[in-house]
């Protein structure tokens, strides 16, 4: 199967949606308006943990233009008290998840700064905000719990009555006894305690919704930012008990998701209450600071890891003790993604005979944590890759050599891991060899000496990773194709691009089969008039799932079209051939185009597929230079070799990789959601205080592909939207630690800010002088 299967004459198909998006013609959630709409403003908790003694809305209700004010009491009365949390598996000792209630607005108690307490709707956004300042809330403060390690300690103040020791769930995977036995006979054990820091995903588009209630049939129209309509309907329905078919979810363009846009947030449910009560559409647009406070956060894992090796540097066992901060409430995807994804890839790319992991979830007085680009995959890969590089350094073995010695070999695939996963296909030695060559691994010592002459520190870091992509929560992915009378094929999917470029890639998939230009395929990702089963876009799944079904559906359309054409042409279907939008009979001139066929009768079909999980893998190598005078790190070189199977659109794959590596670099060098430990205030609630990665941080990334076709996906495709995050955390941190290891530093937690590096480096150098 050729690399360039989906590229016409070797030319990249440029993104069909870009003209609309870059000329400001996109329609985002806040761009929708309805006649007679009201505007919403939320009053949010200004404290981290407190009992709500009273809420006085009298003065605010009299403010000109105010149409209604709603609080937690309204949420409880409506029964909007519990969102869905996908925690449908048992934990350690058959433990059931303790999922606390979360009324759409706080009821009786607030548990994090920014939690919605009241909703004001008024004729204008200004009036709603003005009136909200007249609401008087009397709180009684409770002890604030920010640090997840402190949260689960006995005796710490409890957030929820139903969650003893602030521990909603404990889970274990692997074989504890075998792991302990392997550690007992190990020649070397390397240990690290690592934090994958809490970060704020910060999509460019702020959260927003516009919701109208139709009393005639008790239905709602919900304009909102989504990652897929089915997931939003399912979650909103679970929260509000409004049946899914009474929820018309509408979204056109979505400006970034990263997992943060898959959640049906309580604010949406609160706006539903207001829309029903007032009988008018209600619009809410989040400010950026509200986003920092109340959009779900990402990562937030503290991982203690140990790797046992024999005298030859072969891995014997690994064990992890994982504490996952979930924030004040359990988000839909937070628990499952921070447990299941690490479990799935617990062995990384290595043959490790014995594995054991223990997970504990903690609730704290902070914003809830959910999936964030990679959702547990970057965290597990980071932990493993830090351990492996640390072991290599401690044993004096080349970091690439130690990896190579322990790789799962090409002939081992499909490979069943100790935690029950089956990796589909990879050529890890091939990936590594290509990466080492691309990075000129052997020539590093020369570059190191050149750097040392300038007084700077240089380090090289490597990570070799694998991750689970595809699958999903729905039993299959469906795609519908319908031919218009003009021959344009409309492609319906419930996957939703938030930047991934489905309008291009899905069109390419169908266009390739139909032999018509991709521009003749119109991709529709949101509709309420036809029920399609399928997953949202997340977990790097859409090209593996819905995208592949585009291909299958197009093949089915050709077959279906042949029988319709045969009827129209008065011949047998077996006599019909298809090419470039035309059905032809055996005699010349005997033909009918897709458009002509559609003019005669309806031409539409539904394709479907279920493909399971694919395992992209790769090797990233980073080199950094650190200025010891300022602590500033410059990423001097960055190389990637990735195996995401068959590539549909190279430009989009490269773009995904660039973005994900940048997000990884952001987390490594600066992003950090910091709560004040005493007050529980978010100290980084604006872009003045919250670091975001900038384009100038990265050098030109040198990229190569090393594809092995997926054995799960019929087209050989593997997912890849998140793998750049998964590989970059380890590569970059390993590079920085390599640079400072000669000073006696063997680990530092992210973010590796200039101030932190300067402090650590100068402390070690000061000690050395004394």
């Amino acid at each position: 199967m050729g690399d360039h299967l989906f590229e016409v004459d070797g030319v990249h198909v440029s993104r069909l949606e870009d003209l609309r998006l870059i000329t400001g013609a996109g329609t985002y959630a806040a761009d929708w308006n309805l006649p007679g709409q009201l505007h919403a403003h939320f009053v949010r908790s200004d404290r981290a943990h407190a009992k709500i003694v009273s809420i006085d809305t009298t003065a605010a209700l009299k403010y000109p233009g105010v149409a209604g004010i709603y609080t937690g009491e309204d949420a409880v009365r409506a029964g909007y008290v519990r969102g869905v949390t996908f925690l449908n598996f048992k934990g350690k000792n058959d433990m059931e998840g303790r999922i606390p209630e979360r009324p759409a607005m706080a009821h009786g108690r607030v548990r994090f700064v920014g939690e919605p307490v009241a909703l004001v709707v008024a004729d204008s956004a200004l009036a709603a905000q003005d009136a909200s300042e007249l609401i008087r809330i009397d709180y009684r403060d409770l002890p604030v719990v920010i640090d997840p390690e402190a949260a689960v300690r006995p005796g710490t103040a409890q957030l929820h009555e139903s969650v003893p020791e602030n521990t909603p769930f404990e889970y274990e995977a692997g074989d504890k006894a075998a792991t302990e036995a392997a550690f007992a006979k190990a020649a070397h054990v390397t240990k690290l305690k690592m934090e994958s820091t809490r970060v704020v995903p910060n999509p460019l588009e702020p959260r927003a919704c516009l919701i109208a209630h139709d009393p005639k049939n008790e239905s709602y129209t919900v304009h909102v930012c989504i990652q897929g309509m089915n997931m939003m309907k399912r979650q909103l329905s679970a929260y509000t008990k409004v049946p899914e078919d009474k929820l018309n979810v509408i979204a056109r363009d979505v400006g970034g998701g990263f997992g943060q846009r898959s959640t049906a947030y309580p604010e949406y449910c609160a706006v539903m209450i207001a829309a029903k009560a007032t009988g008018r559409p209600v619009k809410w647009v989040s400010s950026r600071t509200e986003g920092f406070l109340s959009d779900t956060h990402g990562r937030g894992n503290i991982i203690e890891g140990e790797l046992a090796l024999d005298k030859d540097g072969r891995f014997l066992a690994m064990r992890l003790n994982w504490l996952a901060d979930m924030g004040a409430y359990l988000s839909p995807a937070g628990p499952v993604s921070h447990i299941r994804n690490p479990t799935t890839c617990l062995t990384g790319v290595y043959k490790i005979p014995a594995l054991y992991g223990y997970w504990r979830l903690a609730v704290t007085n902070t914003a809830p944590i959910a999936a964030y680009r990679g959702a547990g995959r970057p965290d597990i890969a980071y932990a493993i890759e830090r351990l492996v590089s640390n072991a290599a350094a401690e044993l004096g073995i080349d970091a690439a050599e130690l990896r190579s010695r322990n790789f799962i070999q090409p002939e081992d695939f499909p490979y069943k891991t100790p935690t029950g996963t089956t990796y589909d296909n990879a050529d890890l030695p091939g990936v590594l060899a290509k990466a080492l060559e691309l990075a000129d691994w052997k020539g590093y010592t020369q570059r190191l000496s050149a750097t040392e002459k300038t007084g700077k520190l240089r380090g090289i870091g490597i990570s070799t990773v694998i991750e689970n992509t595809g699958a999903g929560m729905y039993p299959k992915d469906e795609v519908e194709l319908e031919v218009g009378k003009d021959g344009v094929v409309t492609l319906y999917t419930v996957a939703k691009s938030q930047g991934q470029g489905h309008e291009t890639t899905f069109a390419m998939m169908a266009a390739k089969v139909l032999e018509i230009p991709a521009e003749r395929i119109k991709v529709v990702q949101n509709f309420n008039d036809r029920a399609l089963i399928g997953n949202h876009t997340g977990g790097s799944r859409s090209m593996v799932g819905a995208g592949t079904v585009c291909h299958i559906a197009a093949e089915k359309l050709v077959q279906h079209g042949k029988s319709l054409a045969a009827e129209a042409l008065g011949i047998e279907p077996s006599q019909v051939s298809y090419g470039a939008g035309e059905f032809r009979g055996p005699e010349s001139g005997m033909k009918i185009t897709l458009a002509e066929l559609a003019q005669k009768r309806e031409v539409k079909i539904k394709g479907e597929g279920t493909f399971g999980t694919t395992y992209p893998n790769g090797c990233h190598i980073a080199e950094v230079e650190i200025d010891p005078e300022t602590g500033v790190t410059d990423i001097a070189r960055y190389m990637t070799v990735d195996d995401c199977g068959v590539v549909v659109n190279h430009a989009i794959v490269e773009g995904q990789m660039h973005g994900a590596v940048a997000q990884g670099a952001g987390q490594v060098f600066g992003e950090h959601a910091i709560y004040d430990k005493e007050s529980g205030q978010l100290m980084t609630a604006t872009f003045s205080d919250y670091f975001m990665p900038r384009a100038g941080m990265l050098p030109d990334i040198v990229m190569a592909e090393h594809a092995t076709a997926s054995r799960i996906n019929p087209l050989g495709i593997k997912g890849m939207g998140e793998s750049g995050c998964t590989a970059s955390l380890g590569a970059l941190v390993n590079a920085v630690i390599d640079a400072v290891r000669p000073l006696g530093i063997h680990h530092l937690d992210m973010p590796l800010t200039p101030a932190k590096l300067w402090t650590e480096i100068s402390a070690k150098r000061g000690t050395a002088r004394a």
Partner: protein
Amino acid sequence: MYSFNYVKPGSLKEVNDFLASNPEARPLAGGMTLIPTLKARLAQPSHLVDISALEELKGIEVRNGALVIGAGTTHAEVARSTHVRDAIPALAELAFHIGDPAVRNCGTIGGSVANNDPAADYPAGVLALGATVVTNRREIAADDFFQGMFTTALEPGELVVRISFPKPRRAAYEKFAHPASGYAMTGVFVAQTNGGIRVAVTGAGPGVFRWSEAEAALAKAFNVAAVASLTMPAADLNEDIHGSREYRANLVRVLTKRAVARLAGR
């Protein structure tokens, strides 16, 4: 943002009169600080008095050997002005590194100096160059103008009209941009003026200040070694989640050294 009234007077005199009779009114030039403050509902002026188009506040010229910049001149205009680049290239460079293009196209020198944000760039240049701040009422020497965090010698209703920079013999500005905001986490402006060596530090402390020890050391020997052996006392510097006071003290020394290196190398 609370509601406010908007007025756009046609002359500086009208502005003065309006501000005198409306004590809760605030002048609006580039709005790069005021607008975010309003959006966060941290201020509630009765009126915004738009002074952004006043000709009397515009223009860059060299007058009697001094570079005179109208208060309403944007950072972008300063950065690309040939007058500034010829007379004080370090000042053009400073302006070029403020914010991003959108900020530079709106923000003004007068607004920056009058606001005296402790992490703003211009105060370092104005102070190190020994500039004179000319207001609608008087002339104020830079050494008297800046009085600590967001505090200046300006009185209510007093507006910065222009700033006059005596041409230094040479000058350089080194900035360490805050990783998140892009403001100066520390910025050091070193100028060899006719009145001697002046070193002004922004970002590191509660307000712009002169580092007198460095000035004295550089007066004796204008070279990197003179600065390298100095220690900036950390006690009075800023400390926050982005860096300790010791880190900022280190940056003051390192940036001073780098500014001197650039000048000594010229």
